[in-house]
């Protein structure tokens, strides 16, 4: 592929159109300007959902790429290191302690908890032997399990299991309507902001020694990266639930094609993440039409397959 970004964006256009045209209500999207009912469906349901999918896919892809640069390991994603579980824990805590807290405070709490959880993961893996590449993702999965079990236990004790089920189980977009997805713009903005520091993330990806040698303050850039990853994951988990594998698989594929010069590759990661999630969401909506299969389920199957191929195609180096 000579212009991977061009090809991906070209694929995004028909996918987006298809998404706008797919739904339980049979309306003619192109007649929307003259048909008030069609316009209502479009603006209240179809467009928000399509935007939500695009923002989520793009932001999770970018978050995954940043996380992989921060921990210098290809086999982790925001969904496998406990970030989402920590966000759920934070949100659960504020829901219990201050149910009347304004929404922005809840969002902030979830993001802060996500950041603490991810920082804990980073602190743990720093104590692992540096050569054991595969122990890093395993640590993440176990840590996610431990935090998840705390969340489950608290939720059980407080009869909030219904609430956390929507966060921790497979994500889906069927509930997205205007007014219930807008925080995803924060995720998108955070991912966009990361592009301005792309060089710094790429240098950090070379290792702390090289970064120090080049005069980069590694702590600051580490914190910035953790903040972006946590913000993105917290927003996604609390609006649409966990979306597995996007943040894991997309950065791997793009890194294969374009390498880790993040200033060039981050836009591509965002576009590819959006395209893959959009495609999976469309499959989920069409395969059992008019019923829906959650995109998380489709992604779990498709993503796991892609991941296994990547795992066995690329031998020694991580």
């Amino acid at each position, binding site marked *: 592929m000579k212009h991977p970004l061009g090809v991906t964006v070209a694929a995004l256009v028909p996918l987006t159109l298809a998404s706008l045209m797919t739904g339980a209500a049979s309306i003619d999207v192109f007649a929307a300007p003259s048909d008030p009912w069609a316009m209502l469906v479009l603006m209240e349901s179809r467009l928000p959902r399509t935007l939500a999918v695009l923002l989520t896919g793009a932001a999770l892809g970018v978050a995954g790429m940043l996380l992989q640069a921060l921990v210098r390991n290809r*086999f982790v994603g925001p969904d496998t290191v406990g970030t989402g579980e920590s966000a759920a824990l934070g949100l659960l805590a504020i829901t219990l302690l201050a149910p009347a807290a304004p929404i922005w405070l809840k969002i902030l709490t979830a993001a802060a908890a996500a950041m603490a959880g991810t920082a804990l993961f980073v602190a*743990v893996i720093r*104590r*692992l*032997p540096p050569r*054991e*590449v*595969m*122990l890093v*993702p*395993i*640590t993440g*999965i*176990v*840590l*996610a*399990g*431990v935090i*998840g*079990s*705390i969340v*489950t*236990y608290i939720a*059980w004790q407080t009869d909030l299991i219904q609430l956390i089920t929507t966060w*921790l*189980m*497979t994500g889906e977009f069927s509930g997205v309507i205007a007014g219930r997805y807008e925080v995803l713009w924060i995720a998108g903005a955070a991912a966009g902001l990361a592009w301005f520091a792309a060089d710094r993330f790429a240098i950090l990806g070379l290792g702390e020694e090289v970064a120090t040698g080049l005069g980069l303050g590694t702590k600051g850039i580490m914190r910035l990266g953790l903040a972006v990853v946590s913000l993105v994951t917290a927003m996604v988990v609390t609006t649409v639930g966990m979306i*597995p594998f996007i943040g894991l698989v997309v950065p791997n594929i793009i890194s294969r094609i374009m390498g880790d010069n993040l200033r060039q590759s981050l836009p591509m990661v965002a576009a590819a993440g959006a395209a893959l999630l959009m495609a999976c969401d469309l499959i989920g909506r069409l*395969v*059992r039409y008019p*019923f829906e*299969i*959650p995109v998380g*389920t*489709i*992604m*779990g*199957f498709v993503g*796991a*397959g892609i*991941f*296994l191929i990547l*795992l066995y195609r690329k031998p020694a180096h991580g």
Partner: protein
Amino acid sequence: MADTALHLTAMPAGRRKTRMLLALSVLLAAASALWLFQGLGEGNRAFILQLRAVKLGALLVVAAAVAVSTMLFQTVAANRVLTPSIMGFDSLYVLLQTAMVAGLGVAGFAAIPQLTKFLAELVLMCGLAVLLFGTLLGRGTRDIGRTILTGVILGIMFRSAAGLLARLIDPNEYAVVQAASTVSFTRADPVLLPIGAGLTAAAIGVALWLAPRLDVLALGRDTAVSLGLRHGRMVVVTLALVALLVSVATALVGPLSVFGSPAFFGLVIAGLAHALARSHRHDVLLPAAVLIAANILVIGQMVFERLLGQQAALSVVIEFAGGLFFLYLLLKGRIR
């Protein structure tokens, strides 16, 4: 020097191990008695006793199956941190069950006699597991990390595939599968229980008979081959035993996973068994693991169910404690 020291302590160590196994057995007997007779009222004695006995039986069978399957699996992989559950064994079982519902329809699935279904599942599960994990582990695991990761990912894939299949059939049937794929010790069927217990006992018997060869298998493929063990065949036999035990446990009470992440019960058991037995010999390790697991499950279930009044919390607590234990092992550098 070290050799003589080892030799000198061999006798007392042997006696110590016997004492340890004895102590664990006594503890288990006491716990079981308490389980059966604690707070037994005047009326309906026979009924309550039978109910409790069935549940106790389920707990014991599951404990034994999980303990032995984990020990055997770690032996095949020559690694102390793998459990069948981490490697996606019970997800495979859920997928298998969903596939059967999808293939036969709910009515067809329900029409099959309980026993036939149970046995068919066992056979299928053993075949699939040997095929899948035999290829994964058979050639020796040079890159153990990648093997674990593969298992974890396969687990997610199986679960997603099961979810996908379940959604493709109608929501109605989805509920049937859902019910079949959450863990509950009260679900144990009094008809299947004796069969499950018999199969588990038989599998453990075979494992004990194979114990000397398992000791060699645990040294890893290269060493085992150079010591003259028929490694490939031993791997297949051991994996078949693991699959049998996992299937029995899962068929009786449902998969021992909560919320999509692997349960670490087996890991804790294996870690404790190694710590307490301080031996590499399977004829000590296997009984120790079984007794430890049975004690934890019976006592734990009793505490949570009767003292704290929380039926379901045990699995979450096990996951929490098991996960922390795993992280501890990881940071101690015991996982390679």
